[in-house]
Structures are given as structure tokens and as C-alpha cells.
């Protein structure tokens, strides 16, 4: 191919191709808005027709209307469930979001590293594996919510029980996922490492670990939402300030607008978390093609 054949039409179409490129960049975002519009549009329509009671199901234009009024209920310093009207600015809202985010992040980091370590340990040390595996398999199906009283008995209230619950929500699943990933490392990868002179430790370090990380990261992302749900529950029953606490307070005071406003914040924050994890995944695990990343 010569340059002329490529360039000549390009110059003429510069305007359109520039526009097309922009459109292509923006396309995912446009779809996000389109997707949201359907939902919001339907809701607003229901309100307009009088199907939805504005006191119980206030549509977005109502619960997003008086933001400062909503902000009052956000108190990042508050540790009492039902604390009222000590917040007030956008910063107090961000503070509350930050607390919830911190608990989720701490729980995820702990859960991910420990499940990886235990999972590898189970396969690496045979006896340890035989002792641990039945335990992990039996504890795995217990809902994190059932751990809630345990968390409070052990840690009282504050951050630790919430972090512990997030940890519990992902730890067992991630440990089992680690085992299944280890078992599914292509046999050729390991045979090759043996031929190249790797001992057992080197096989785990140089072959198994990098081979399993990408899929485990995808599993982590899939369980991100479970982690969020758990943290909200923990906050709702009173471990301290956070989005879950605000939701519960809104429920107790029959403030439907505040419920939906908080739910919106939760949705946006969860979405941002997923995007952030995807970013980390792309940067750290560069060998994974975009096709296997999944999701939006």
C-alpha cells in the first residue's frame, strides 16, 4: 500500500474522521447515559402519570432537587446510628463515601492477599491442604450476614467488624477460586518450567502465580459488589458512619428522598470502584488482553 492512496481521502475527510474518532471515544459513555435514561425516564413517566406516589417513590428530579437539604444528613464523624443534621456540605457527603470506601478497600485487600496465600499454601503444602480444605469448603457457604454477630462479638463496633465482614464475604470464595485456578494452569506451562530446571518453589513463583493472577482479579471484581452490600449492612446495624448508616437513618425517618439519594451515591461509588479495579487490572496485569477483562 502506498501513502498516497491512504492519505488523499484522509485529508478530505479530516473533519468527519475527527468527529468519528470523538464519537468512538465517547461511545461507551453515551451508552451508559442511554441505559440510565431508560430507567430514569420510565420512573419520571410513572410519576407524571400519577402511578408513583412522590412521597414513597420520589423520582430523580425530586430527590436530586434540594441537595443541600440532603447533605445535612451526612455526618462523616458520626458514630451513632440515626445521628442527625450535623453534616451539611458536599465535603461531609464525600467524607461519608470515603469511610464506606475505606472499609471496602481494606477488606478487599486483606481478603485478596490472604486468600491467595492460603490457596497457594493449600496446594503447596500437602498436609496443610488436607487440614484446611474441608474447613474452607464448609465455611464458604455461610452468608457474611450470619457472621455479623460474630464480628460484633469479636471486634465490638467501629471499623474492624465492617472490614472483617468484607473480608469474610470474599475470602472463602477467593480461596476456592485460587485452588481452581491453580489446578487449571496449562500442564505445558509447568512441564516446560520443569524442563527449564525450576524447582517446586520456582514453579509456584515464576509460573503458577503469574498464570492465576489475571483470572483471580476478575473474580475479585465480580465479588466487589458483594463486598459493597456487606459493608452497607454492617454500617446499617451501627458500626459507624457510612452510606449504609445514612440509608438506615433515612428509612427510620421515612425520608424516601434521602433513601434514593443515598442509593444513587452507592450506585455511583460502586461503579467507580469497578472502573478503578479495571484500571489496576490493566496496568498491573498487562499481559491480559482486553477481551478477557469482562464487564463494561
Amino acid at each position, binding site marked *: 500500500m502506498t501513502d498516497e492512496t491512504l492519505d488523499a481521502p484522509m485529508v478530505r475527510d479530516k473533519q468527519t474522521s475527527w468527529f468519528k474518532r470523538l464519537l468512538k471515544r465517547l461511545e461507551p459513555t453515551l451508552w451508559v447515559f442511554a441505559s440510565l435514561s431508560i430507567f430514569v425516564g420510565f420512573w419520571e413517566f410513572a410519576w407524571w402519570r400519577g402511578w408513583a406516589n412522590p412521597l414513597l417513590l420520589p423520582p430523580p428530579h425530586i430527590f436530586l432537587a434540594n441537595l443541600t437539604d440532603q447533605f445535612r444528613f451526612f455526618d462523616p464523624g458520626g458514630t451513632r446510628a440515626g445521628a442527625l443534621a450535623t453534616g451539611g456540605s458536599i465535603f461531609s457527603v464525600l467524607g461519608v463515601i470515603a469511610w464506606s470506601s475505606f472499609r471496602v478497600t481494606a477488606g478487599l485487600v486483606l481478603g485478596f492477599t490472604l486468600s491467595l496465600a492460603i490457596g497457594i499454601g493449600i496446594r503447596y503444602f500437602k498436609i496443610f491442604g488436607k487440614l484446611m480444605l474441608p474447613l474452607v469448603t464448609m465455611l464458604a457457604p455461610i452468608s457474611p450476614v450470619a457472621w455479623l454477630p460474630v464480628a460484633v462479638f469479636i471486634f465490638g463496633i467501629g471499623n474492624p467488624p465492617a472490614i472483617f465482614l468484607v473480608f469474610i464475604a470474599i475470602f472463602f470464595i477467593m480461596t476456592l477460586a485460587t485452588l481452581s485456578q491453580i489446578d487449571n494452569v*496449562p500442564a*505445558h*506451562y509447568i*512441564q*516446560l*518450567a*520443569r*524442563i*527449564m*530446571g*525450576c524447582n517446586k518453589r*520456582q514453579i509456584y513463583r*515464576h*509460573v503458577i502465580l*503469574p*498464570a492465576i493472577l489475571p483470572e483471580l482479579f476478575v473474580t475479585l471484581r465480580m465479588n466487589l459488589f458483594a463486598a459493597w452490600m456487606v459493608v452497607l449492612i454492617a454500617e446499617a446495624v451501627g458500626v459507624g458512619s457510612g452510606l449504609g448508616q445514612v440509608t438506615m437513618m433515612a428509612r427510620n425517618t421515612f425520608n424516601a428522598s434521602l433513601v434514593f439519594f443515598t442509593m444513587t451515591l452507592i450506585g455511583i461509588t460502586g461503579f467507580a470502584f469497578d472502573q478503578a479495579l479495571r484500571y489496576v487490572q490493566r496496568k498491573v*496485569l498487562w*499481559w491480559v*488482553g482486553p477481551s478477557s477483562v469482562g464487564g463494561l
Partner: protein
Amino acid sequence: MTLGLKITNVSKTWNPDGPEPVPAVRNLTLDVALGEFVVLLGPSGCGKSSLLYIVAGLEDATEGSVTFDGLDVTEPSPERSLIFQEAALYPWLTVRDNITFGLKIAGQTYKKQKDAAERLLRLVGLVGAGDKRPHELSGGMRQRAALARALAMKPKVLLMDEPFAALDIQTRARMQGHLLNIWESSKASVLLVTHSIEEALALADRVVVFTARPGQIKAEIPISAPRPRDMRSPEMIHLAIQCEALLAEEVEKSFKEQEQELA
């Protein structure tokens, strides 16, 4: 002491204690001399890969012994490098780091690794591809990278399990030429598995035809014609017809067997 590879009365049964043991290789004896190029030709499923795994030291023979340069083969070694049908490059490493993987494990200095990588990339015709990732290479290039990775460890014998089977015909022919050049300059022995008669005749000093499962040696055909060989010469055509007849019998047998198993 005999130099080279010596396979004596080797049998291999998979799942020997299971409900359905699979006899893959039976009582097989084969020597590969120093620098010799031997090709194993046989219908698929006849135990060729099983034999290569045993020679590589990745699997134990159920019976018999394998020695290399007079020493028992008990575990894998970079001296007896294995090349699979799919290159099995590590996707998390660049092509260069894949090639020097064994050197790194052996604790060689970074400088030595880097020099070796450049030399090997040149040898297999991948200059400039060192920083690429495996999935950016074509099938033929990946297989060349795998070859370079094996050569980095200065193997005494290259075990190759249908290395070009996944490539298109044109790439295949080029790769065969390439392999012959590398073999001639490295003086390593080669034990290569294929089910392509043409490939066997183009490459081998000696073609070993396998029977259907469990694999035994049906015939050995030495080929002394100089390389590169003209497949249309009367001598080659004659050999091809001979191989085809031998192979057809065994393929027939293995088909019959499969039908019986299903019935």
C-alpha cells in the same frame, strides 16, 4: 558407555491401577545416536507423545529404561528439551524474557541473558521481536521463539512433538528448512514426532513407523539422500509410497479398535 539416547524395552500404561488402564507404548527399543535426526511417524493416539514425555523425564516408564549419555533419565533436564505443538510461551513475559527464562532460573547474569537473547533472536529470525508479547506473534514466529528458548539451554537432544502441525503449509516448509539449518549448526540430536509423511521424509536420517496403540516399532526406514530433498525425485516418491502403505495399515487398525471400543 554409549553416547546419545537409548530407549530399552520401554512400556507405558496410563492409569495402571485404574478401572481402565490405557497401554500407550509397549516394549519399545530405540536408539538415537549423537547428532542424529530421527522422526517418529504414526497414527494419532498411538503413544508417540507418551514416549517423548518419558524421554523428557516428565513421566516415568511403567517398564524398561531410558538412558542418556549412559545416565538413567529420572527427571526433566534442559539437556533434553521438549517442544510442544503449541509454543506454550508464557503470556506474561515478553518474547525475550521467554527465551531467557531457563537462563534466569539457572542464575545467569543479566548481561549474559541479554547477549544470549540477541544471539538467539537472530538465529531463529526474530530480530526486533524481543519486546513483543507472545500473542502479537504469528504461529510460526511463536514456534521459532519456543525453539530459541530450548536452544538457549544448549540441549543435547531436541524432543519435538508435532511442532509444525498447527501451521499452514507454506510456513511449515519454511520452518522445516529453518530447523534443519539449526540442527546442522547445533549438532544436537533430534527426536521429532509427526503424522505427516512428507515432513518425515524431508527431515529424517531415519523414519521410525509406529503401530497403532499400544505403540511399537513397525518399521525403520533410513534415508541417506542429502538435504534439501526433492520430494518429486523417484527415490523420495518410492519412500513415500512405502510409508503410506505402512501407515495406512495402522490407521485402519486403530479405526477398527475405536469402533470396537464404542460398540
